[in-house]
């Protein structure tokens, strides 16, 4: 029994942690928060430069050729440090879409550029929930039309992967008929944009009969990787709250000595660790493409969304008034938790996917 990462994998994660601790600082994150930058170029160049971001991209496509277990641990570190970079957009979503559903030519063309950081790519893949009404995106005869309300990193992307029904479509954002504009969101540290395509010439990544299954595969991979970011963030905000509870005194004692807060933090810890073991299981399923992946990915997604949202909310509560201020970083965790939990469909949508997969399995 070895339900753990290897020493080498941990070593790589430590290196990434060291780099992020130096570069992905509160000051740097707040430059993006304030709108002075679309992302942290410094963090991004480091992550790409050290081969970490492209850990799961094969060497033939310019990646590090390590694997998913490595990328999962890197994702945990990125989540822990609220890295304000398009790691999810470019690597968990767009690169995954290319690797899992693209043809050789599409992969050759785009993956090396993504791996090297020459192109930032992004994807809009969720389709279970929607707010605004309007016609669903349509792709027919090589032309895409439709509105994509929230596309992460849309304004800096050199390649878009957009979903129309069960077809994933590669779109050049500079192509005629593509209109995009920045939108304000609840997590300004990870900017998004709206993309409207009007009869845009585009290339299908996958579609037809296998389309639905391929979309699922891409979403499952992204779910596992995002779960690691969520676990990293949830773990970190609990540490921050714990440290504050040890330092802050009220009624003549450390507030962390009150059982109400001790038990609250124990519950947050329990939810975080439950998310962690499900994320680990997802990492295992992803790394060996196990038939358990749909169940494991959905479980990781739900457990991690629950955990990070809750840890971030309680992080503010434990701090009290000071935690509600702009200057404290607590809200950055709450914003990021919300961003990660809705980026590829909500916790509720994924809970349904999990139940459906379990019911199929039990049939």
């Amino acid at each position, binding site marked *: *029994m070895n339900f753990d990462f290897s020493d080498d994998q941990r070593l790589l994660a430590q290196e990434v942690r060291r780099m992020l601790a130096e570069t992905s600082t509160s000051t740097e994150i707040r430059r993006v928060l304030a709108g002075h930058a679309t992302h942290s170029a410094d963090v991004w160049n480091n992550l790409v430069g050290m081969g970490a971001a492209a850990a799961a991209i094969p060497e033939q496509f310019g990646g590090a050729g390590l694997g998913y277990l490595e990328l999962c641990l890197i994702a945990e570190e990125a989540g822990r440090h609220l890295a304000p970079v398009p790691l999810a957009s470019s690597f968990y979503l767009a690169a995954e879409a290319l690797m899992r559903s693209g043809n050789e030519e599409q992969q050759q063309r785009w993956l090396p550029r993504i791996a090297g950081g020459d192109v930032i790519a992004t994807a809009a893949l969720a389709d279970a929930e929607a707010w605004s009404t309007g016609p669903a995106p349509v792709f027919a005869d090589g032309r895409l039309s439709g509105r994509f309300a929230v596309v992460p990193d849309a304004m800096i992307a050199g390649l878009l992967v957009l979903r129309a029904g069960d077809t994933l479509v590669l779109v050049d954002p500079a192509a005629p008929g593509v209109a995009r504009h920045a939108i304000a969101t609840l997590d300004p540290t990870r900017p998004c944009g709206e993309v409207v395509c009007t009869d845009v010439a585009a290339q299908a990544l996958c579609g037809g009969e296998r389309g639905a299954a391929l979309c699922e595969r891409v979403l499952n991979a992204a779910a596992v990787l995002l779960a690691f970011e969520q676990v990293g963030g949830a773990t970190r905000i609990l540490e921050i709250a714990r440290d504050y509870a040890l330092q802050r005194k009220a009624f003549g004692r450390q507030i962390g000595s009150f059982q109400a807060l*001790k038990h609250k933090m124990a519950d947050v*810890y329990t939810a975080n660790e*439950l998310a962690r*073991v499900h994320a*680990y*299981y997802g990492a295992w399923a992803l790394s060996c493409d196990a038939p358990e992946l749909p169940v494991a990915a959905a479980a990781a997604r*739900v457990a991690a969304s629950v955990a990070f949202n809750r840890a971030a909310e309680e992080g503010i509560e434990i701090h009290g008034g000071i935690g509600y201020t702009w200057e404290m970083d607590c809200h950055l965790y709450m914003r990021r938790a919300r961003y990660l939990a809705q980026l590829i469909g909500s916790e509720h949508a994924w*809970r349904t996917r999990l139940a459906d997969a379990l019911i199929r399995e*039990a049939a």
Partner: protein
Amino acid sequence: MDFRDTPEEAAYRAEVRTWLHANAQPRTSDEQRFGEGLDDAERISAARVWQRRKAEAGYAAITWPREWGGSGGTAMQQVIYGQEEERFLVPRMVFENSIGQCLPTVAMWAAPAVRERHVPRGIVGDEIWCQLFSEPAAGSDTGGIRTRAERHGDEWLINGQKVWTSGAHFCDYGILLARSDWDKPKQKGLTMFIIDMKAPGVEIRPIHQMSGDTEFNEVFLTDVRIPDANRLGEVNGGWKVMLSTLMHERLAIGGHLPTHLHRNLIQVARTARWNGRPALDDERVKERIANAFLSQHGVELIIARGLTALSQGKEPGPEMSILKLVAGRGILDIAGFALEMAGPEGLVAHQDLGREWSFLQQLWLSAPGIRLAGGTDEILRNVVAERVLGLPGEIRTDRELPFRELER
């Protein structure tokens, strides 16, 4: 990351499996239990026979050092044996306390002659042991023990009451924690003894649990005489001895917690009908199925983390406390919801609805006990908060005062 055995573990598993096939009957379903239809005496005598057979094959005390008569094996081997034995119809819940906690304590702390007298007999199943720590006024707060030990020459006179003693009614001996000094602070006036459960003055009354079972007992002790030779450790050094007993429990990482309960829910939801349609069509039911998987498969994965530590030769730490927190609450929710899906018929006693139903109803009735045994949810939250997160301990007013001055 690899859920498979290492080559050494696989070899040990194969050896265990071969032996079990040659010596026991495989179970045919999850719900099947050994000894259905046997009375207590028949069950105990079958357990003694099975224990002797295990001892002869070297499986009775796998992790004990050889000088105690054990096999000198690893914790992982013990776990593997347990996993394999689980698939067979063999007696259970008779020798667990003897081998798991009581005899290691005797082996560590008893005088050589006493050790020689008891340990070999315990391994082969001739003597069965129980643990007498808890009292009506000393549950989570074990230091609150009031059973009195008074020294008279070479003997101790014991008076008091113990509670929640597993298997006391069929045990031959027990390890007993009693208060030997009322003028010392609570944890510093306790002494550990070996008690003969058949001695005059030992009266055992079964506790009728809310599940209908009687696994535990109250034990009343009236002028019970214990020779000083049967003391374990120093006079007033009982707290330290007790901690060593509890250390031996660390291997029991959730071995018997159910982990696939979402399947039971799915099965019930296929049969149960809501407004004329299968309950399984309802999205709220699906949500509960997903939640059942998250908690109980989570339990399995947390156990896998603990086993990973064991497999690497490490000791699973206090972080394993979350296991029972997740499992206890999860089982209660799942079993309760299964009953709910059947509407008023969910109240029908299980005899009329078959084995599957009986399993779920028993689970519902046993879940409150799971949340208490081996540390309540609240105590476990304190363990996580203090030992994992490093938060301050509870403010205590009882640590330094002489025990007799504490408020009752």
